[in-house]
C-alpha cells in the first residue's frame, strides 16, 4: 500500500485561514500529506503489523484497518471494538482507517473472493477474523515483554493498553514493546476470550467517527479536490435504455469554466473547472436522444402486467403439503393483494466518484460497497492489471445499497469521462440530486397476491403467496445465486415464513421485459415480503377472532428467537392493555409485526393516531431485537432508530413512479423523506445473547411498515394494501 492510498478518513487538517487560503488552489486530505512526510522521514517510526487488520505504533496508537465501508452503520466502531477487545487496548488509543482494495486479504468471508460491505454482514463476517487479529497482536506484545523482563508469559497481564507483570512490578505501554514484538513471528494459534471477560464488547464505546462528523472534517468523495482536477456533470437520457443520437455543445462550451464536452456511453458529459460551471454547461447543452430501445411504460401499466401475471402460477420458491387442495377444502378462505412502488435509495450524498490516471495506473476516490468488483471493472476498461487500480475508500454519505453499484453505473461514468479526455486531468463526477433520483437502480416494484384457508378451529390450514417483480440479482456479481429461476432476494421473508402452516406454496414471476434498472435497497426482499406476510397474518388473526400476538406465538413453536422478541416487544409496549385515547375525533390503534432478515429477528409494536381526514402519525414504536452479541449496544440502538425512520418514509410518501417511461420525481420536494416532526418515539430492547453477532444495519426496516399498517387497521378497520399508504382510505 502506498502512502497516497492510505487516506485516513478521520480528519482533515483545516488550513483555510483568511485570505492566505486564496493562494491554495489545491486541497487534499491532510493524511495524504502527512503520509508523504512520514515516508520521507530518515528514521520512520517502527510499527507492529502482525496481520492485515491492525498496526500498533510506537506512539501507542492502535490503527484498525477496516476492510468494510463506513456508510453510517457504525461498522468502523464495531470492527475496532472487536480488535480492541482481544488486544486489551484502551479505547482512546484506537483509530480506524480504510483498507486498500484487495480480494485476497480483505475479502468478505460471506462472499468468497471479493471485498465488499453489504447484507448487514460487516460485523458478522469479521467477528472471528478480527478477534484472532487482536488476540494475535496481544500475544506478541506479551511474548516481547516476557523476553525483555525474563518472566513467564503466563504471568503477564494486559489491560487498557498496558502490559503488566505484577510480581516484578514491571509495566509497559504497547508502544514501548513495538520494536521487540515486531521481531517475533505471529503465533500459529491464539486463545480467544470468554464472553464473560469482555470489557468493550457489550458496552457503549463512543463512535470513532463522531468528532469528524460534528466538525465538518470527515472526508467524503464530494470533498475530494485534487491538483488540476476537473468536475463533470452528465446529461442523462430522459428514459431508461435511450442513447445519445446527437448533441450540440456550442452553447455549453461558451459557458465560463467549461473545459470540454464529451460523449460517453451513459450520455454527454460537461467537464468544467467547478460544479456550478459544469451544471450551467449542461443546462446550455442540447442533446437529441435515440429512444428506439427506450423503456416507455408507466407504473400503472407495469402494475397491470404484474396483476395479469399473478393470475397464473409462477416458479415454485417454497412448498410444503398441498396448498391448492387445502385451500379448496378450507372452511373459510381469505385473499389479499399488495402493491409496492419503485423506491430510490436517495442517500444524502448523491453518487459521485473521483478518478485519476497516472503513470502507475489509476487511482480512485469513492465510498463504495464493493471495492474489488469495482477494481476489476476499471482494470478491464483501462486495460491494466487490477492491482494497478488503487481505491481509496472514503466515508459514504449514506448508501442503503446504492453504492454497491451492481452495474457500476456512476463509477463507470467517471471512468469513461477521464478516458475521453485522455487522462489529462483527474475527474470528479458529480451527480446532482435530480440525476441521483432519476438514475434507476431502484428497489423493484412488486405485486403480491396471498390466499389462505382457515380450518374449523380457526387455524391456518393453507397459505399461498404469489410474488411478481424484477430480479435484483440478475445481471449482478451475485447472479450465480439465482437457482432454477428463483432469485432468493425476491422471495426472502416469504419463502422462509416462520409460521407452522401445514400446506404452503410460494411462487414467483420474474418479468424480464421491464427496462427499469433495479438494485438491492436496505433489507432487499424483506422490504416487501415482511409487509404482505405480516399484514395478511394480522388480517387472518382478526378473521379467526384471535389476539394478533397470541395467534403468532401459537405458530412459532419452532422459532424461539421469534417467540422471544415478539413476547418482549409486546410486554414492553403494554400489548393487551388499554391505549390512551386520542383527542376528540382521533382514532388510535396498536399493531405488531415480527420478521427475520440477515440472521437477526426483530419485533415491533407501533402506535398510531388517525385524524378524521385520514392523515395519521406514528406516535411510538417499541422494538425488540435479537442480533446475537451486541458488539456496541448503542450503535445497535441507533441502527434500529434509523431503520425505523428510513422505513417510515416508505409508509408515508416514498414512491418512484413512471409516466411513459419517464421518472416523475426529481428531488426531495416530490420524493419526501420523513423529517423530524414525523419521527415517532422509538424504544429499543436488545435481547441478551451469547450467539455470534448477526446483522443490524437492515433488519429493523422490514417490520415497521406492517406494524404501522396493522395499527391503522386496529384504529380504523381499514387494511392498507399499497405502500405508501393513501390517507384517503383512512377517512372517518
Amino acid at each position, binding site marked *: 500500500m502506498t502512502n497516497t492510498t492510505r487516506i*485516513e478518513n*478521520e*480528519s*482533515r487538517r483545516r*488550513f*483555510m*485561514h*483568511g*485570505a492566505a*487560503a*486564496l493562494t491554495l488552489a489545491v*486541497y487534499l486530505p491532510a493524511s495524504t500529506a502527512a503520509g508523504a512526510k512520514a515516508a520521507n522521514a530518515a528514521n520512520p517510526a517502527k510499527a507492529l503489523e502482525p496481520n492485515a487488520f491492525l498496526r500498533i505504533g510506537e506512539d501507542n496508537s492502535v490503527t484498525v484497518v477496516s476492510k468494510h465501508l463506513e456508510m*453510517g*452503520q457504525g461498522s468502523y466502531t464495531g470492527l475496532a471494538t472487536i480488535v480492541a477487545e482481544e488486544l486489551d487496548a484502551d*479505547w*482512546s488509543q484506537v*483509530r480506524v482507517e480504510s483498507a486498500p482494495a484487495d480480494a485476497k486479504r480483505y475479502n468478505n468471508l460471506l462472499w468468497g473472493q471479493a471485498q465488499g460491505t453489504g447484507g448487514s454482514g460487516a460485523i458478522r463476517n469479521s467477528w472471528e477474523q478480527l478477534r484472532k487479529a487482536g488476540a494475535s497482536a496481544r500475544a506478541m506484545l506479551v511474548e516481547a515483554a516476557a523476553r525483555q523482563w525474563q518472566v513467564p508469559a503466563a504471568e503477564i497481564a494486559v489491560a487498557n493498553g498496558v502490559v503488566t507483570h505484577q510480581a516484578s512490578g514491571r509495566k509497559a505501554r504497547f508502544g514501548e514493546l513495538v520494536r521487540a514484538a515486531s521481531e517475533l513471528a505471529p503465533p500459529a494459534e491464539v486463545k480467544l476470550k470468554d464472553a464473560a471477560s469482555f470489557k468493550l464488547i457489550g458496552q*457503549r464505546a*463512543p463512535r470513532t*467517527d*463522531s*468528532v469528524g*462528523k*460534528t*466538525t*465538518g*472534517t*470527515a472526508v*467524503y468523495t*464530494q*470533498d475530494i*479536490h485534487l491538483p488540476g482536477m476537473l468536475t463533470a456533470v452528465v446529461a442523462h437520457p430522459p428514459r431508461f435504455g435511450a442513447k445519445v443520437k446527437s448533441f450540440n455543445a456550442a452553447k455549453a462550451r461558451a459557458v465560463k469554466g467549461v473545459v470540454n464536452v464529451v460523449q460517453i456511453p451513459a450520455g454527454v458529459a460537461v467537464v468544467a473547472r*467547478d*460544479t456550478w*460551471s459544469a451544471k450551467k454547461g449542461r443546462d446550455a447543452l442540447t442533446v437529441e436522444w435515440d429512444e428506439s430501445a427506450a423503456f416507455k411504460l408507466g407504473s400503472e401499466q407495469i402494475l397491470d402486467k404484474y396483476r395479469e401475471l399473478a393470475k397464473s402460477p409462477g416458479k415454485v420458491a417454497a412448498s410444503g403439503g398441498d396448498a391448492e387442495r387445502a385451500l379448496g377444502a378450507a372452511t373459510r378462505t381469505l385473499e389479499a393483494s399488495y402493491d409496492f412502488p419503485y423506491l430510490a435509495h*436517495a*442517500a*444524502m450524498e*448523491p453518487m459521485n466518484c473521483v478518478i485519476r490516471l497516472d503513470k502507475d495506473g489509476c487511482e480512485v476516490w469513492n465510498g463504495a460497497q464493493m471495492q474489488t468488483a469495482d477494481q476489476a471493472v476499471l482494470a478491464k476498461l483501462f486495460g491494466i492489471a487490477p492491482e494497478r487500480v488503487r481505491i481509496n475508500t472514503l466515508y459514504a*454519505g*449514506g*448508501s442503503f445499497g446504492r453504492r454497491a453499484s451492481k452495474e457500476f453505473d456512476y463509477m463507470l461514468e467517471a471512468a469513461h469521462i477521464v478516458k475521453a479526455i485522455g487522462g489529462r486531468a483527474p475527474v470528479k463526477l458529480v451527480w446532482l*440530486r435530480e440525476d441521483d433520483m432519476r438514475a434507476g437502480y431502484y428497489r423493484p416494484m412488486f405485486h403480491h397476491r396471498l390466499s389462505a384457508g382457515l380450518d374449523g378451529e380457526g387455524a391456518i390450514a393453507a397459505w399461498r403467496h404469489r410474488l411478481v417483480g424484477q430480479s435484483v440479482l440478475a445481471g449482478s456479481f451475485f447472479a450465480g445465486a439465482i437457482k432454477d429461476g428463483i432469485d432468493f432476494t425476491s422471495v426472502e421473508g416469504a419463502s422462509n415464513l416462520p409460521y407452522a402452516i401445514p400446506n404452503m406454496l410460494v411462487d414467483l414471476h420474474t418479468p424480464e421485459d421491464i427496462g427499469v434498472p433495479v438494485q438491492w435497497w436496505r433489507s432487499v426482499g424483506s422490504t416487501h415480503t415482511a409487509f404482505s406476510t405480516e399484514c395478511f397474518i394480522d388480517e387472518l388473526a382478526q378473521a379467526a377472532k384471535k389476539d394478533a400476538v397470541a395467534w403468532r406465538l401459537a405458530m412459532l413453536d419452532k422459532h424461539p428467537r421469534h417467540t422471544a422478541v415478539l413476547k418482549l416487544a409486546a410486554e414492553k409496549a403494554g400489548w393487551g392493555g388499554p391505549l390512551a385515547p386520542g383527542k376528540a375525533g382521533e382514532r388510535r390503534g396498536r399493531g405488531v409485526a415480527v420478521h427475520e432478515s440477515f440472521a437477526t429477528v426483530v419485533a415491533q409494536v407501533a402506535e398510531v393516531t388517525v385524524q378524521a381526514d385520514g392523515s395519521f402519525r406514528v406516535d411510538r414504536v417499541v422494538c425488540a431485537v435479537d442480533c446475537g452479541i451486541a458488539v456496541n449496544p*448503542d*450503535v445497535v440502538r*441507533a441502527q434500529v*432508530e*434509523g*431503520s*425505523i*425512520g*428510513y422505513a417510515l418514509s416508505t409508509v408515508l410518501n416514498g414512491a418512484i413512479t413512471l409516466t411513459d417511461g419517464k421518472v416523475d420525481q426529481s*428531488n*426531495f420536494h416530490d420524493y419526501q*423523506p*420523513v*423529517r*423530524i*416532526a414525523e*419521527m415517532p418515539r422509538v424504544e429499543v430492547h436488545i435481547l441478551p445473547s451469547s450467539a455470534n453477532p448477526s446483522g443490524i444495519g437492515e433488519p429493523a426496516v422490514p417490520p415497521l411498515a406492517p406494524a404501522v399498517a396493522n395499527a391503522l387497521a386496529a384504529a380504523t378497520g381499514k387494511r392498507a394494501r399499497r405502500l405508501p399508504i393513501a390517507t384517503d382510505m383512512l377517512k372517518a
Partner: protein
Amino acid sequence: MAQLHVNGSVLEFEAEGDTPLLWVLREQLGLTGTKYGCGVAQCGACTVHIDGEATRSCVMPISALTAKQKITTIEGLSKDGSHPVQKAWAALDVPQCGFCQSGMIMAAAALLKRKPKATDADIDAAMTNICRCGTYNRVRAAIKVVAKGGDPKSAGLAIQHVNPQTGSKA
C-alpha cells in the same frame, strides 16, 4: 474578485454572480464541511449562518451577498468542536453517515441562539433538515441537552470521545 466575510475573515475569490454560496464555500474557499444534498433548499445539508440566521446556501447566489454580512460555516462554529451543540452531538453519537450533520448542527445552533430553551414544537418547526439515516431522535435529544444547560451527563448520555487528530479526549 468578489469578497465575502467568512468565519471571521474577508476572503477574495473569483466566481460568477449567479454561483450559489454553497459552491463558493466548497470549491473556491475549500470549506467542504458544508454539503450539497439537493440544490433546491429542501434538505438543509448546506445550512450556514448569515448574520446568525440559518440559511440554505445552495440557493443563495453570491450576487445577493456583501462582504458586510457575516457568514459562518461549520468550520467557523468553533475551532475545535467545542460549541455546545457540537459537544452534545458527539456525546450522544448523533451522526451515522454524517453527511447531513453539518447542516443539522448549524440549524440547531441558530435555533438555540434564538430560543435557548427550545421546545419540541420549536424543534419541529426549525429543524426541517433531512437525514436519511434517521438520526432525528438523537438530534432532538442533543438539542434538548443544550437547552437544559449543555451538560450531556445530566441526560445520562455522556460518552467520552477521542479527537482522532490529536488523541486528546474531548
